[in-house]
């Protein structure tokens, strides 16, 4: 089975959990015999034909332009990085492709031509919704425009049975591919605009999300929590929605032996410092705990639009040198801070899934997670608390600090539990969904 997959993130192109999730999922799917042509927002017009498990790390690439591909394949690269640079991948998604190269979308999009192939009025409405909202001067919107224009080419040139698109940035591409190929489309919801914005967010993004999910044949939600959101906020046909929880596979080269940094109990917040993740609740929790346990340290690892606010607030609250900032951490540094933590907290206001707590649990760290998260549905050996109930968060942390044996025990139980949550099971479900969708599709009456 050949899948045309669109995603915005894939290691080493990662800004959040999406890349990690796609990596684990694709690797497991490959091991189950699925062939995947992956399209990423690379600078050069390439796709990645992934055929075996190891391809997720080596990322074999093909240029759409045969001349360019010849040049590329005749060239020798000293390192993997050099090769990725050539294609236009770096670890910072901001540098995918230069905006200078983007033609004006409004003139480039052949809206009329797209619509000419549309059959029903319902379809027409969805196309109108998508094209009318993919308009704007923001860098991200323009990058999505460029990505979508390219998808047009990929959709025509490549050979595939089914299309799989991750999150709204790639929904227009998925729609386009389905339009051309008449092949079924599965969209995968890792997060909605409501989660990311912690409020209403950008209406254009809602509309694109709505159009994509409605146009798709199947919608994968990463949790019940997300499925609920899709049904209530986007009114998507319940029959199309499948819940397939994300999983977590610890990278083989991870060093997980505990190695303290601080002599006192160490509490860790690891993630983007943005409203969605609840960093302001973390501050309040820290303040309450430090009143009882001034020997504790609270670490906030990551960056985000609220970094400055949290920094200044922590000083205003006089949290002394007990509330510390690591800034952005790379993969190895994340491991280092995990080795040093006793308690992991995820006080997210809205978390569709949340892979990071699984990683923390794999390190044997006792975790406290927001009830408003998908990950709370899949783990038992973690404390689950409403994000707003700061008193309960503080009491729980105090309790763990006062009962270190209990904390260790909970951490070990959590570790055992997480080790059983692998991507294989999730990939199996996805493979079944591919098959059943294809079967339905083949049986559908011709229009």
């Amino acid at each position: 089975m050949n899948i045309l997959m669109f995603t915005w993130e894939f290691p080493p192109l990662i800004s959040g959990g999406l890349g990690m999730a796609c990596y684990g999922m694709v690797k497991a799917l490959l091991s189950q015999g699925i062939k995947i042509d992956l399209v990423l927002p690379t600078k050069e017009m390439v796709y990645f034909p992934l055929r075996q498990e190891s391809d997720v790390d080596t990322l074999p690439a093909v240029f759409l332009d045969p001349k360019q591909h010849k040049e590329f394949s005749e060239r020798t690269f000293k390192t993997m990085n050099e090769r990725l640079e050539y294609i236009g991948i770096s670890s910072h998604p901001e540098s995918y492709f230069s905006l200078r190269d983007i033609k004006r979308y409004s003139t480039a999009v052949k809206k009329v031509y797209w619509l000419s192939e549309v059959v029903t009025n319902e379809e027409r409405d969805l196309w109108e919704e998508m094209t009318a909202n993919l308009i704007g001067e923001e860098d991200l919107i323009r990058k999505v425009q460029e990505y979508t224009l390219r998808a047009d080419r990929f959709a025509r040139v490549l050979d595939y049975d089914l299309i799989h698109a991750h999150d709204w940035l790639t929904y227009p591409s998925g729609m386009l591919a389905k339009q051309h190929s008449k092949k079924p489309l599965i969209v995968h919801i890792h997060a909605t605009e409501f989660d990311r914005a912690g409020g209403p967010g950008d209406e254009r993004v809602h509309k694109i999300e709505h159009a994509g999910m409605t146009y798709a044949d199947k919608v994968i939600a990463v949790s019940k929590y997300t499925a609920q959101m899709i049904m209530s906020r986007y009114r998507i046909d319940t029959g199309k929605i499948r819940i397939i929880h994300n999983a977590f596979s610890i990278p083989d080269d991870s060093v997980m032996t505990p190695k303290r940094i601080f002599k006192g109990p160490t509490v860790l917040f690891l993630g983007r410092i943005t409203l969605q993740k609840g960093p302001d609740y973390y501050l309040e929790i820290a303040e309450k705990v430090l009143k009882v346990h001034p020997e504790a340290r609270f670490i906030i690892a990551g960056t985000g639009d609220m970094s400055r606010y949290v920094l200044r607030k922590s000083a205003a609250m006089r949290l002394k040198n007990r509330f510390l900032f690591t800034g952005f951490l790379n993969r190895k540094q994340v491991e280092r801070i995990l080795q040093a933590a006793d308690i992991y907290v995820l006080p997210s206001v809205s978390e569709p899934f949340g892979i990071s707590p699984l990683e923390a649990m794999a390190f044997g760290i006792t975790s406290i997670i927001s009830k408003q998260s998908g990950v709370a549905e899949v783990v038992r050996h973690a404390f689950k608390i409403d994000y707003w109930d700061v008193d309960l968060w503080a009491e729980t942390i105090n309790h763990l600090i006062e009962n270190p044996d209990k904390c260790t025990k909970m951490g070990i139980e959590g570790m055992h539990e997480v080790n059983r949550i692998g991507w294989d099971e999730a990939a199996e479900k996805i493979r079944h969904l591919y098959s059943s969708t294809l079967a339905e599709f083949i049986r559908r009456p011709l229009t």
Partner: protein
Amino acid sequence: MLNIIFYFQVHQPYRLAHYNVLDIGNGDKLFDDRLNGQVMRKVAEKCYLPTNKLLLELIKQNEGRFKIAYSITGTAIEQFKLYSPETLDSFKELVDTGCVEIMGETYFHSLAFLYDTNEFLDQVKMHRELMKQEFGYDTVTFRNTELIYQDRLSDIIYEIEGFKTIVTEGVDRILQWRTPLYAYKNYSKDINLLLKYYQLADDIAFRFSNRDWPEYPLTVDKFVNWIDHLTLGETGGKNLFLNLFMDYETFGEHQWASSGIFEFMRHFPAEVLTRKHLGFATPKDTTHLANYQQESLSFPEPVSWADEERDLSAWLENDMQKNAIETLYELMARIKQKGDPELLRTARLLSTSDHFYYMCSKYFQDGDVHKYFSPYDSPDQAYIYYITALAELEERILG
């Protein structure tokens, strides 16, 4: 007679390394030796060495009629020894002329006066001993860090044997209608007070190379004429003092050599000395030169020479600064209880006021000055390195 008192502040802090949480406990150095060496060598080359050479020449030429004063911090002396010993030698040569006064202050250029009186006294004593040891000089004039002063400071300094004079900023809200040209007394009339004449001092220190300033370019002739005019109001034969206090780095660092600042200074003393009612003095001379009943001035609130506000807001305005300094002095108290000299030295190096200056987030013009002097991208970044360093220090205490 109007006596011009040049006093130059010489200071270099130990700048912190870009310290990260993940570095804690690794035994890494807290301070950026490479950067500190680099800065010291650069400033020595651009400012200290050429300016010392010039001033030595001027002192020799004028045979005792040209005098200057310095305050040199302990952290500057230490770093001269590490990175530019020839600079220290050239200062010694200057002191040996007998036309140079060396002033007392805190060894670490700290804000200890505001947080811990015993620590303040210790640092003043350390500095005094260092001046004796390096220059054979007994300090009798005191300047607190960045000219920070309030009534309480004079009480403390008066208790220390030997100090007769304190220098500070001529702040308008204290002086009101008075002129900073007279020598004053502190509120209890125990100590001699000299006040910086900031308008003229800042013409040299801040405005000298500013092409948007209507008086640009500042010539020796023009400047000496302005000084001359200051004396017109005083006809009773009283000795006046024009206190031109500034950072030593004004010469060649803040005002580049290409601005003509060295040429200005080269010709300034000769022009002054052609006028018979103008001369030079050092702060300690004022105790016997003041030939009148000195009015006493009260400073209930602290003042300083920094920024438009001339208060403590350059170091202690925002929450980052306050959280950082309060945490430091708490740790310092714990270290003293524990009695670990190495940790105490580290805490003291962290007490240098520059660390808090880098965290200043006042915007507008003053913010620019702060940015110019800061080795970090932003006040927030400076705070992160500092508070992380304090976490390292605390782990060492617990160690």
